[in-house]
């Protein structure tokens, strides 16, 4: 019965979405207030219906109702309840339902929190949002119905992929979806602005919190995904340049660019066309991300629904959304009034340069991801893949100037700045970082110049972030508590995010240069050394878990006189027969000790266990930095400027009307 209720609610949602796609738009064109108001109610109703549908599916998973095909295929009785619930979105159909749920929640958010929006703009945004809903709802209903029944009903279900039976899965996909789908809102903002022919500072101010609302969970999701891969996949990597990782990274890069260009549009009325283009691209890349995972066009560990028919549907959606939006952009954007001009050395030009570099980075990732597809089209026998060497070669030289710019940017004044003034501001930080770099080279040796440069760059970012606060708190009359208290949340956000980037940079530089590893066959009592870590195997035994059997090995790990015990397991899940590795990780702020076991093997001295030992210096900083960035975004989102009504600036050419900060 629940399955039918859920299915029915899904169908009703589609009908509501169709009405919402048409009527508010019509209202905006005709100036009919009632039709525009319908959009707001419809958005709320849509969210309610889809929540019912999703709730039904989740309950079915909770009850382990194997008469539903999806439940039978993705959960087993032996699976803990939490993972049975998480299995709701650990499969293609359920994740599509989650996607539309998130989409409609954002839609309801625009209806609820968009009181200060121009009504015609809000109506158009809600219409565009509903068009996206219609496409995805139709996709879910017609190609991947989650409520399909199964007969005869099996006694037990097939298990969820054991790799996914992990707390990481419970949060990783929903966070990513919040990010991907969040960019649908900025997309709708962009399309609505093009339809209205108006993208002014007020428009940018309305849109900015929605950019943040997508960017923050996306940042969390990517960070969590990287962390999950690190401890679950069992070979200690934290980023693989896997197509699906790239698929989440590209919207992040574009989203970051959008975040910054929207500031320029908000404060100065400039770059409106560029901001619109970025808003369109951010969502398009999210769609392409989905397309990559679902279609099987690129093979990847993440692919869980390799099905060309769905691929065709998603490709049609991408062409419909992105193609239409870009065509609209080509037709309308040249007519948008551009804002105030700015000097070649100014905050605006700094942000423009930041945008260009982020775009270039996105292009690099895009090319690396799609090169195999393009090559195959050109010469069909050529199946190639693009790996880390390409990214190291091309990505790093582009990202370095960007990171240098991150600290300089906030020192620049709006509109016009002077090189001499900038030079004076830069004197102290540049000297400090040069000293740090010299010290690092002396300490690490000239052979590790690259690592020293990376660490110095991290220091440069953190110092730059701290300096923003210093400049804010020490006014003309020296340090003042009043200035501390009145620091806008957005400034705190900037500081946290830029400092986070610094921690991530330092972590990556150290990991790349100083990680140590050793793979060998060990027997109880033996000791092995990797970098500064010394590992002794104590013993190994077979153990039984809730739904798996495992070989568990115990180790003592010592480093600099400190000892700790670590346990690593190799699990075999009894229902599916798949194997996973649970690594033993000794976490500390300065680095992680990582021990993972493999198969039983023979070597010259008899039978033993394959053991991989790693020393990962500062690896935790990579994720700590990601977390700081997300917190920075959240802090910015809390800025009260977004909650007070935006001034209705008639002319974008009047920057004085925008309150200066």
């Amino acid at each position, binding site marked *: 019965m629940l399955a039918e209720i859920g299915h029915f609610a899904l169908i009703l949602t589609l009908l509501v979405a169709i009405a919402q796609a048409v009527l508010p738009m019509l209202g905006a064109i005709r100036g009919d207030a009632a039709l525009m108001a319908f959009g707001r109610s419809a958005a709320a109703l849509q969210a309610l219906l889809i929540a019912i549908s999703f709730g039904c599916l989740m309950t079915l998973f909770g009850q382990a109702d194997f008469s539903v095909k999806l439940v039978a295929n993705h959960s087993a009785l032996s699976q803990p309840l939490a993972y049975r619930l998480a299995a709701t979105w650990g499969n293609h159909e359920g994740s599509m339902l989650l996607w539309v749920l998130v989409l409609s929640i954002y839609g309801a958010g625009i209806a609820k929190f968009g009181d200060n929006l121009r009504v015609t703009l809000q109506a158009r945004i809600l219409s565009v949002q509903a068009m996206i809903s219609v496409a995805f709802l139709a996709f879910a209903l017609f190609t991947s119905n989650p409520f399909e029944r199964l007969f005869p009903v099996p006694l037990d279900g097939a298990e969820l992929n054991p790799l996914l039976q992990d707390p990481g899965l419970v949060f990783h996909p929903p966070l990513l979806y919040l990010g991907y789908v969040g960019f649908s809102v900025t997309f709708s903002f962009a399309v609505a602005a093009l339809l209205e022919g108006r993208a002014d500072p007020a428009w940018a101010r309305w849109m900015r919190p929605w950019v943040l609302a997508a960017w923050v969970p996306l940042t969390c999701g990517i960070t969590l995904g990287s962390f999950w891969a690190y401890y679950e996949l069992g070979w200690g990597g934290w980023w693989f340049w896997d197509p699906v990782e790239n698929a989440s990274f590209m919207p992040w890069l574009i989203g970051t660019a959008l975040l910054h260009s929207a500031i320029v549009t908000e404060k100065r009325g400039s770059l409106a066309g560029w901001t619109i*283009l970025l808003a369109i691209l951010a969502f398009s890349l999210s769609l392409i991300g989905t*397309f990559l995972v679902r279609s099987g066009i690129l093979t990847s560990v993440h692919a869980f629904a390799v099905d060309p028919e769905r691929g065709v549907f998603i490709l049609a959606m991408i062409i419909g959304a992105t193609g239409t939006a870009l065509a609209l952009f*080509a037709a309308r954007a*040249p007519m948008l009034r551009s804002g105030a001009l700015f000097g070649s050395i100014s905050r605006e030009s700094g942000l423009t340069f930041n945008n260009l570099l982020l775009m270039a980075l996105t292009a690099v990732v895009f090319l690396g991801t799609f090169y195999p*597809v393009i090559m195959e089209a050109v010469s069909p026998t050529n199946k190639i893949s693009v790996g880390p060497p390409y990214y190291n070669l091309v990505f790093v030289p582009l990202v370095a100037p960007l990171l240098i710019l991150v600290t300089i940017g906030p020192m620049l004044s709006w509109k016009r700045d002077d090189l001499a003034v900038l030079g004076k501001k830069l004197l102290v930080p540049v000297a400090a970082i040069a000293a740090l770099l010299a010290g690092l080279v002396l300490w690490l040796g000239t052979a590790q110049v690259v690592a020293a440069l990376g660490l110095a760059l991290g220091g440069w970012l953190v110092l730059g972030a701290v300096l923003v606060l210093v400049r804010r708190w020490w006014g003309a009359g020296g340090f003042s508590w009043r200035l501390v208290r009145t620091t806008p949340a957005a400034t705190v956000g900037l500081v946290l995010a830029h400092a986070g980037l610094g921690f991530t940079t330092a972590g990556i530089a150290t990991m790349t240069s100083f990680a140590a590893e050793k793979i060998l066959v060990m027997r109880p009592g033996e000791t092995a050394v990797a970098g500064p870590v010394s590992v002794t195997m104590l013993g190994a035994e077979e153990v039984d878990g809730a739904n798996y059997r495992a070989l568990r090995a115990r180790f003592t790990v010592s480093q600099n006189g400190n000892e700790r015990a670590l346990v690593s397991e190799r699990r075999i899940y009894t229902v599916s027969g798949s194997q996973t590795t649970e690594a033993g990780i000794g976490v500390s702020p300065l680095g992680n000790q990582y021990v993972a076991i493999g198969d039983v093997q023979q070597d010259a001295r008899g039978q033993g266990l394959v053991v991989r030992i790693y020393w990962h210096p500062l690896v935790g900083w990579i994720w700590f930095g990601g977390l700081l960035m997300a917190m920075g975004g959240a802090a910015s989102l809390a800025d009260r400027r977004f909650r007070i009504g935006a001034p209705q600036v008639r002319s974008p050419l009047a920057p004085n009307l925008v309150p200066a900060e």
Partner: protein
Amino acid sequence: MKRVLFILPVIAFAGLAAFLGFGLTQDPKELPSQLIDRPLPEFVLPGITDAPGGGPGLASASFKGEPRLLNVWASWCAACPQEHPVLERIAAEGFPVYGIAWKDKPEDSRAFLARYGDPYSGMGSDFPGRTAIDLGVTGAPETFVVDKKGRVRFKQIGPISPEVWEGQIRPLMQKLRAEA
């Protein structure tokens, strides 16, 4: 001039969409094996009987003289019981099928064959999984078509379905038989 700049994104996107559309027509599972038209990698494997050392096993040197199928399987593999009737049929039609039990304890392999029947003309045990690495095996089951001269001519990833047998592998085997 300025207008052209604004049209550029939509043109670039049209090109991309064309490539993506083309990509959809390709089957990502069709990974060409590096071994096609090359000699079978050398291996000498023990058998799976309970005799000391596993009894008579399987060696790459024996793949000469007539075309044969080499099936990599395991008792723990979920798709293998499904493929098994097809293998029995192939053997009954007079085409020799040889097997490598991959990462499988000999007693488990024996139990599997005792339960489902034994269509294999010869069987080697690759418990350490080394030979499978040389063969580029990505999962079980996989089947190689080896010609009279011991060269790999075709690789089937995943179970052989009756359709694959009738439509692809049997015609190939018949062609290979006719080859000089």
